């Protein structure tokens, strides 16, 4: 295997900033959550790559990735529950309609 670590890091950086772009431009709660998942996923790739290329005798990055995946699952479950509740209350998930917490 002779893929340089830099290629993997560049791939994950691009995925992360595509997620940032989506987070800035999307106007819908579910789409915002999809962008967040892209960013979390890119960060997990970074942990695994640094573990594999820099400290292969240790397991820190590997286990951090595992815990990151677990936290992402918990976060998505709660966020989707909140989104369904928001929809039940105001019949829309467009973020322009979510004004009650603004001030």
């Amino acid at each position, binding site marked *: 295997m002779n893929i340089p670590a830099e290629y993997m890091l560049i791939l994950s950086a691009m995925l992360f900033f595509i997620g940032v772009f989506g987070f800035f*431009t999307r106007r819908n709660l*579910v789409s915002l959550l999809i962008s967040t998942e892209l960013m979390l996923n890119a960060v997990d790739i970074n942990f695994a790559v640094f573990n*594999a290329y820099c400290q292969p005798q240790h397991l820190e990055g590997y286990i951090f990735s595992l815990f990151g995946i677990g936290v992402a699952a918990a*976060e998505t479950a709660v966020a989707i529950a909140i989104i369904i509740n928001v929809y039940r209350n105001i019949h829309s998930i467009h973020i322009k309609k979510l004004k009650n917490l603004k001030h």
Partner: protein
Amino acid sequence: MDINMIIFGGLAIVMIVSALFAVTSSKIMRATTLLLFVLFGTAGLYFMLHYTFLGAVQITVYAGGIVVMFIFAILLIGKGSMDITQTSIRRYLAGMATALTGMALAIYLIMNTDFHSDKFTADGVDMKLLGNALMGTEKFNYILPFEAMSVLLLACTVGAIMIARKK
């Protein structure tokens, strides 16, 4: 040009294109499916690093759990209210400028840093070692975060039921 590089290139192209369309597509169901492709590509990257357990976890939790939850939410809310209205051109340009600047900065820093990243071995991780690291109490063992994660998942289950239940 060896086979690993070809596989990596294919994965990278699929992931980048899927991610781009996932954040620009106007159909929410299509965006979710493209997110699924990105997650499968990430699992492929983990398999290329010989981290097979991590790849399996990625497929089960992300592709099997999170995407199914997304699809449930979309179907519960109804696709009609999901029309992704076009955002203002000013916000679009601001988001693109931020993303491109950040991407350029990150790529510049990655290319100009020496990570001492030449220690890759194709051994993968022994499952016994991983299990001991997750459940052990010695130095470099992770029983405390493991148990904290179980409490977090329990709290999240209770919280999600509390929030989403009908009054």
